Each structure stands twice: as C-alpha cells, then as structure tokens.
C-alpha cells in the first residue's frame, strides 16, 4: 500500500530524515516509536506533502506521491490527524465532519453514518462548536473527520497526547475496529507504548532520522528490550 525508499527531508538547512525506507501493507497497522525530536512527525508531514521530500520516493498504491501537494495526497486516499488535533474550533462538530467528507469526495458529500456509530459522543454533540469539546472528544472528532473522507491510509500523530488513560483505551479500540472492519491501513506516531502496542501489528523505531529497528507488537509485549533501548522508559 505505502512504499518509502531513500526518503530525505528536513526544515531549512537541517536534514531531519536520513534515508528512510519501509513499507506498509494494506490493512496493516504500524506504529512509529522513538524519543522526541527523532523525526517521527517530520516523516508523517513528508508523506502528507506538507514538507517536500529532498530525495527518495514515496509510493502509495503504486503511484508516486512525493512532490504532490497535501490536497492531492488527501484525494489519493491518505488522511492525516496532526498533533494537537487541529479541529476547527469555531465550527460545529457536524461541520468539522462534513469538511472531512467534502475534502475528499466533493462539496455534495455527506457525513457517513458509520462515523457517528463509531463515535456516538459526536452524534450527541453534533451541533456544538468543536472548541467546546473536551480533549478526548476533540481527538475523536479529529479522527472522525479524517475517517469521514473514507481514506485508505490514516496517519495519526500522537493521538494519546493529553488524554486520560480510559479515553486512550477507547480511542485504541475504535481504531482497531476501523482497521478490522474497514480494511483501513494505519500509521501511528506514539509516545504512549501501551496505545502503540494495542493498535499496531508492528513497531518501527526511529532514531536521529533513521529507522534503526523493527519488531512485531506481540514480540515486544513478551520481550520489551527494544522498547527500553529506544524509548525513555
């Protein structure tokens, strides 16, 4: 589904990503782990086209997407939930979701009823302004908005940030169901190992802008050596 080879990217004069190469299969869920400042967010932003790739290539469903603008990447079927969620605080919950649907499927698109089924709180609060929701509800709204466009690949940046543990579990369960029922492919950047191991089939470790290790989540649960080595636990 997604194939990355020799990807280099960065901000201004600094090179953040150094020769990243990995692939994600359809319906697979992968977590990107690593300490702060290792390039995880930069990698997601590069895939999305928010940051130009300086070298290497990114292929999605067979077609090159590096060098495309974010709206073209989104149209191709990739959705991105950034760190801090970036919901439209002034717009209602329903309008936020509607924008997710319209972005990918045209101005006439409707919010898929399945989104409200997945996140019932959003249905309850549909006429409330996004800014009035709690952190956990905003995260659900951001994910719901991304899913409203029916993407094939979802990029999540720190979904657990600022959420209480019970909400993290709820979000993890909703994502897991989306992967299994909708054949969604997922790449999650996480600091929260618990969420990462729950959601992802496989974990990749990023250090100083390069991939240094990878392991299936099941294995990491049995033997957390890699987690201790690459994360500050």
């Amino acid at each position, binding site marked *: 589904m997604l194939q990355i080879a020799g990807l280099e990217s960065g901000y201004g004069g600094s090179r953040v990503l150094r020769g990243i190469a990995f692939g994600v299969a359809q319906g697979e869920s992968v977590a990107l782990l690593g300490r702060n400042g290792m390039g995880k967010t930069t990698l997601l932003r590069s895939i*999305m086209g*928010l940051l130009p790739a300086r070298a290497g290539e990114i292929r999605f469903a067979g077609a090159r997407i590096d060098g495309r*603008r*974010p*709206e073209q990447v*989104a*149209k191709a079927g990739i*959705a*991105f939930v*950034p760190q801090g969620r*970036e919901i*439209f*605080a*002034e*717009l209602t919950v329903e*309008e936020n979701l*509607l*924008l*997710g649907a*319209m*972005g*990918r499927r045209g*101005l*006439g698109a409707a919010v898929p009823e399945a989104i409200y089924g997945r996140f019932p709180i959003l249905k309850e609060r549909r006429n409330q302004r996004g800014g009035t929701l709690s952190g956990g509800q905003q995260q659900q709204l951001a994910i719901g*908005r*991304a899913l409203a*466009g029916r993407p094939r690949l979802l990029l999540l940046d720190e979904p657990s940030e600022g959420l209480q543990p019970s909400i993290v579990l709820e979000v993890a369960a909703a994502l897991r169901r989306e992967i299994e029922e909708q054949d969604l492919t997922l790449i999650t950047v996480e600091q929260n190992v618990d969420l990462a191991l729950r959601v992802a089939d496989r974990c990749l470790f990023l250090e100083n802008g390069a991939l240094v290790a990878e392991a299936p989540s099941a294995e990491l649960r049995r033997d957390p050596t890699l987690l201790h080595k690459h994360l500050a636990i």
Partner: protein
Amino acid sequence: MDQVLLLLLDAANYVLVIVLVAMGLVIVFGLMRVINMAHGELFLLGAYTLVMLQQAGLSYWIGLVAATLLVGAVGLLMEELVIRHIYHRFLDTILATWGLSIMIKQGVILLFGPGAQSTAAPFAAQLDLFGTPYPAYRLFIMGVALLVVAGTFYLFFRTRFGLAARAVIASRDTAACLGLPTRAFDRATFAYGAALAGLAGAVMAPIMSVDPQMGLGFLIPAFLAILVGGAGHLGGPVLGAGLIGATDSVTASLWSPVLAQVVVFTMAVVAIRLFPGGILGGRRR
C-alpha cells in the same frame, strides 16, 4: 418631518453605499489578510466598464452584469499574477496592491483621459415616500447593497462553499490535508471580493462623476468601517459602516461636512482605542 425623513434616507443611503464598497474589501482584508489598496481602482474599473458599454449603446443592465464579471476576472488575474506570491507578507501586499492601483489608474487616464465621464441612471423617477419625493435610483442602490450583504452572508455562512472557504481561512494546512483545494478557494474568494467592487462602481456611476479619482472617496470610509467594526467577522464592517455613515451624514446635514469629518475620525479613534480589534473583533480566535 420631511427634513427628518430625508435626513434618515440620506444617512441610510450613505451607510449602505459604504457597506457595498467595504464588503468586497473586507472579504479580501478580513478573510485573506490582504490589504487591497487597489480596491478603489477595481471600483473605478466597474464604473468605467458601465460607462463605456452604455456609450456603445448597450443597456444599463448588461453594463452592470458585465462590470461585475469583468472586474471579477481582473481580480482573478491580480491574484494569480501578484497576490498569491505574497500571502503572509503583509507589508508587501500593501506595496504591491498600491502599485497595481497606480497602474490601473494611469491606464484608465491613458485610455480615457483625466476628465470626468458621466452616464445616466436607468430610471430617473422620483418616488413619493410619505409625502417626500426621493430618487428611485437611490432606493435601488440601497436595495443592491442589502442584497449584496444578504447574499454574501448566505454564501459564506449557509452554503457548503462558504463552509469550505471558512475552513481554508481558519487553517490552510488542515484544510489541505482534508483534500480541500485551497488554491481554488483563494482564487474564488479574491475574485468575489473584486467582483463586488466592480458591481459597486457600476451601481454608483450614474450618481457620481466618473473620473480616475472616484475610488478614493469611498475607500477611506470603507477602511474606517472595517477598523471600527472589526475584520474578524463579516458583520463587523456592516456595523462599522453603520456607525461611520450615520455619524457622517447626520453631522454633515445638521452642521457642516467639515465638522462631520472631525466627528467621524474622532469617533474612529475612540472606537479603535476602546476596541483595538474592532467592535466585533473579540469574536476572533
């Protein structure tokens, strides 16, 4: 009684004319953060388009529609050639649009000369309003202004297009990540603002002297209306225009136009001191 009614009508007329001119300006300034110094010249182009087409023998109504569309197209061109390269460079947009304003104004002088043109209103009737005769065309202008305000609010707050445009304005990157074509919305929003200036110019042409300086007289009160009312919300300039227009025309007719200027600017200074973001500015994030 007649005097009071006439005063109210004139005040309402002036307020609505400022709203008509300010609406295009506020869409571009308030929503896209571009101060369009060439807005007055777009107004000018609208007026000249109407005059030229009428002199060529076409009807006023064709001229009105053509002026709106043509100036909208000029706005599209301006956005594509100049403005899109300097979004987020606030001072540069002032300089660049100022340059454009000089270009357009001098172009008009080269083509049509510095003198005044004039054109006739499509109807010259006087309507009898509660015993006071009032030019029907002035009522028409007020109607157009009200329609423009209502139409703009409808477009931006009741349609899918408006929802997407507001999302692009609120956060470009987020809107782009959802797949919304941000460039298309920039173009459309700028062209819409320009088209409103063209429409305002064409509507006003029959009751004023159509000369290369005509844009200036409305640009200053329009900017004042935005500053006083606040640019963060479309309602801001409507409120600002109401305050400025009403103060100006009431003071001018009761005392003198000079005193009216003094009062209006004093009021603007006080309003900006009390509400630095404009009276409705607090609604912005």
